[in-house]
Structure formats: C-alpha cells, structure tokens
C-alpha cells in the first residue's frame, strides 16, 4: 500500500477509536461530575448562609448570586460567588450576606493556590470564621497582628498579609457589584 495513504488511514483509525471510547467514558462520567460541582455549590452556600434551606440562582446584569430561603420561603440571605487574584493565583470565594447586604454571615474559600502554610491558611476555619457578623458598610477592612476593634475589620493571617488583603478586596468588590444591581 502507498505509505502516505497508510499513514493517513492508520492515524485516522486511531483517532476515531479514541474519540469513540472517550465519548462513551464522557457520557458515563459527566452526570457524576456535574453532581459533584452542584454538591460543592450546595455545601458552600449552606455553609455561608446557615439559615438557608433552599436557594435559587439569580442572574442580574452580569452578576450571579443565590437567593437563599428558609422552609417558609422567606429570603434569609444572599450567597455571592466571588473571584479575584490572590498572591499566587486565583482565589474563589462564596460570601454569605444578610438580605440587606449589611452584614456578612459567612465566607468560604472554595479554591486557592496561595503559599502552603502561610497564605494557604486563608482556607482554614479560624480565618474564615472571622468574617461572620462583619459589617460591610462602608467597606470590610483588615488589621495586622492584633484583634480588630472595628466591626468592619478582620485580622490578617500572620505572614500572609497579601493573601488576607486579597480576600478582603475580593469580598468588597463583589459586594459593590451586587449593591449596584439590587
């Protein structure tokens, strides 16, 4: 057989088999992967808005948020996905707010690639729990090496001011954005 034809035929054959096999694997795994993503979303939303029992996704002028309700259908809070740059890469957060956006009910770090042991500690419970009850007006702030005095402040992780500051900045920016559309 002509060698050029053989090259094309063999490579095409392998590509087709590969494509076929992978589409089968994809069909089997994609519902599981979607379920995983949803499960993670559920977990983070119920973590940052503890009173919530159900939620609806709302999209308003490019801002996506989750309207959280209790059993009776009353809105008990808003869960706001937020994203921005940290010290080494993208930080993704879920921010829980009271319906009037005045107070933070919780913050969960969903994804971060900060320095392990330093900036990485923003993913620890102690750091995230500080945000509970923080007042968002005029803006969330941070202090270094001491307990915060103002109700709008949190304490930065020691040795990881940039990562802590980034989290605060990401939260402030997304609150600004949602305030403009609500």
């Amino acid at each position, binding site marked *: 057989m002509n060698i050029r034809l053989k090259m094309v035929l063999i490579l095409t054959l392998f590509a087709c088999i590969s494509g076929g096999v992978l589409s089968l694997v994809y069909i089997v795994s994609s519902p599981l992967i979607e379920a995983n993503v949803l499960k993670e979303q559920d977990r983070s939303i119920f973590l940052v808005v503890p009173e919530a029992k159900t939620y609806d996704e709302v999209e308003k002028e490019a801002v996506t948020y989750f309207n959280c309700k209790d059993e009776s259908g009353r809105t008990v809070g808003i869960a706001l996905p937020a994203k921005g740059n940290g010290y080494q890469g993208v930080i993704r957060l879920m921010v829980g707010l009271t319906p009037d956006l005045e107070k933070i009910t919780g913050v969960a770090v969903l994804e971060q690639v900060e320095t392990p*042991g330093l900036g990485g500690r923003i993913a620890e419970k102690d750091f995230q729990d500080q945000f509970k009850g923080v007042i968002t007006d005029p803006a969330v702030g941070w202090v270094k090496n001491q307990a915060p005095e103002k109700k709008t402040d949190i304490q930065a992780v020691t040795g990881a001011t940039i990562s802590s500051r980034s989290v605060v900045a990401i939260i402030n920016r997304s609150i600004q954005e949602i305030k403009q559309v609500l």
Partner: protein
Amino acid sequence: MSDLNSTQKGVFVEFTKGFWKENPIFVMLLGMCPTLAVTTSAINGLTMGLAVVFVLTCSSLIISIVRNIIPKQVRIATFIVIVATFVTMVDLFLKAFLLDLSKALGPFIPLIVVNCIILGRAEAFASKNGVMRSLLDAVGVSLGFTVTLVILGGIREILGMGTFFGMVVLGERFEKWVVMLLPPGAFITLGLLLGAKNIIDRRLAEKRK
C-alpha cells in the same frame, strides 16, 4: 537490559529494573515536572503515581499490540493519541469520584500526556517488544515512579506539615518546615535522595569488586 534473552529471569528483570536500576526519577530523571510539583504530600504523590501506572500500563499494552501496523513516520502522533485517550479517562475519573484530589493535582493529570516517562517507554520499549515484556516494563517503571513519588511526598509532608497521609506523626510542638512544601523543598529533597542513591550504588559496586 532490553536486549536480554527471554528466559524467566530476563523477563522478571523487566519488572524489577524500574524500582532501582532504571528508576524513572532517580536514574532516568524523567517526569521531573510532576515529580517536583505535586509531591507536597504523600497522598498527592500516590494519586499521581497511580494515574501514571494506569496510563503507562494501558498505553504500553495497546502500543505493543499494534506496533507492527503503525507506519514509523506517524508513530509518535499515534502514541500520543493513545496516551491522551487514557489520560483523559483518568482525568474524568478523578473529577467524577475524587474531586478534592483532582483539584490538588490540578493541571498535572492532563499533563501526563506529555510526560516523558510515558512517551519514553512507548518509544524505547513498547514499540520494540512483545506484549508480555512491555506490560512488565510498564508496570515496573510506573510502580517505581509511584514509590519514589510517595517517598518524596512523604518526606516533604512529614517535615512540612508534621503529618503522613494526613495522620499526625510529629506532635504539636514540632515547628513546621514550610520551605519543604514550597518549590525549594522539592529540589532539596530530590537532590539529597539522588545523592543518597548514588552513594549506595557506589558502595554496592565496590563490594562486588
């Protein structure tokens, strides 16, 4: 090594060589990117290693079966298609069943496609040897890779976090060596282990004289 005759012993050597004599990390120095990047903990090293075991074993099997029908001009392209197929399977599997590990390993699972251990074994071994020998070679080399990654990850995890596979082994009072979790820690650990292996090899060679 690959030119040994097919006696029982010769075949078995194909399996064991990956652990010491032709260890992919310590001797061939292949696959350095995942070696340095993902070994921040023992579990990351183990998962990465097992992913490579699956990909290398499956692709070596297929490549050794079809090696005679592939025109040599397109062999690398064909190998890559085969390897990429299995890598995508692993990636989807991890995302479906082990989401946290999939996140921790990030882009390094998809990057197995271009891992030189896989293409190296395909080109240097599976495309020239029969199914049985290729399988033994693939399993041996990839398990050698896995064991080495677990050792590296274990050392870095113990010194950097005081834990091993998440279990606390060094008490509360242990001051964590954060540097071990950072890139320099990977280079330092790998360098020391390489040196240690060379010392042992030299001692063994002297004894034999």
